[in-house]
């Protein structure tokens, strides 16, 4: 599973970071500092919750076998 982040849509709510600080790293201004990453099986549930918690809907979850 992969997390893909639309950094332009990030408004700095930092809800993702609140739920999963190791996955969603912030820059010095408190905005998301990554375009995305692969997620281990153990962290999938946490990543999904974090994506749902984003008020800007800036976090997408893409499955590994997806070719989109």
């Amino acid at each position, binding site marked *: 599973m992969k997390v893909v982040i639309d950094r332009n849509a990030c*408004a*700095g709510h930092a809800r993702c970071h609140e739920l999963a600080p190791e996955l969603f790293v912030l820059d010095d201004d408190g905005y998301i500092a990554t375009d995305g990453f692969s997620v281990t099986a153990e962290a999938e549930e946490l990543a999904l919750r974090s994506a*749902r918690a984003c008020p800007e809907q800036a976090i997408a979850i893409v499955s590994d076998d997806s070719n989109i």
Partner: protein
Amino acid sequence: MSSATEDTLTIPEHVPRELVCEFDIWAEISAAGVCAHQRAARFHDELPPIFYVPKLGYLPGAWVPQKAEDLRRILRDTQTFSSQNTMPFAAMLGEHWKLIPLELDPPEHTKYRALINGLLSPNKVTAIEGAIRQHAGDLIDAFAANKRCNFNQEFADQFPTLIFLRLMGWPETEAPRFVKWTHTLVKSQDMEEVVGAVVQIKNYLMQKIHDSRANPVDDFTGYLLNSEVDGQSLTDDELLGYCFLVFIGGLDTVASSLGFHFMHLALHPEHQADLRANPDKIPIAVEELLRAYSIVNMRRIVTCDVEIRGVQMKAGDIVLISTELGNTDPEVFEDPCEVNFDRGDGNAPHMAFSFGAHRCVGSHLARRELRIALELWLQKVPIFRLAEDCNPVMRAAGVFGMDELIFEWD
């Protein structure tokens, strides 16, 4: 007081009669007292998804979109829905400075906002958590043994003011006059009094800016004085705009939120018991209370004709962004009036701090203050309730507030 009179309540021709709400929504919400938010939530059943009010308190008529989806779209489309000239303070004095970055639109907004994001990031808030805890604890310790407190006077007004003064690098002894100014600005219905407070706040802030320029110090104004946008130092009007914004943004909003959150707990001992037994739920409880008791109502001005959900808005129209309506949208939140700490932190996000570019820059500080206030109250004060002689007064306006909250405990 420039209250709208009958003859000024002209409804623009392009507004269909069936979309006009005949009653004063803020008066209706205020009249509901401690059930104010439940009253507002019923607008979703009673009124169209986008309706028009001929006036809002002493403010002119506006469109009121209720659906979270529409509000999100409007807040994101900053070209069509502008934030410029949406706040009344400079105009009250016949002046033209803006609240910065609140009354700017992207791309200008982005440059000015970038200057202050880093000052209020989650990490910066964590760095002062000890001080926040100390202030909250000291305030509670002062009345805990009394078995009774006037919540606004003894806690909610003081707590964010003390944190604000610390962040600004200004002495704590200024707290009483800051509280007084904030009260006048937010609560007074006497326009002369409000203008008087705006003048005093402005003069105070300008004096601080001049002092800081004469004797450079490492505080908020000192930081702004050393900052540049597009290679230019900030003008006095810009410095004032920033300082005035953090003043009105940081004081009354947290105080008002505290009032609603603690009123809810006073009326719901079972929720107090839940959080006392499970303090790790407090952060999620704060999110749910922020959702269920949202207080901020902003405005946007339509810059070009636009259609939303089949409703035609014209350039110059005003749109109300009511966070308490967006956050009780039944399409997004099941049983929206129900305060449920088990909705979960990965469920539908609320818009208490708005969406998009203008997301509340102080949101991380506000959340931390609210969380710490709850933690320490529940540690230091036993089950509390509304005092029998207490008659809370609900005040619906740009920022909702609850006055006359008196709590008692055994």
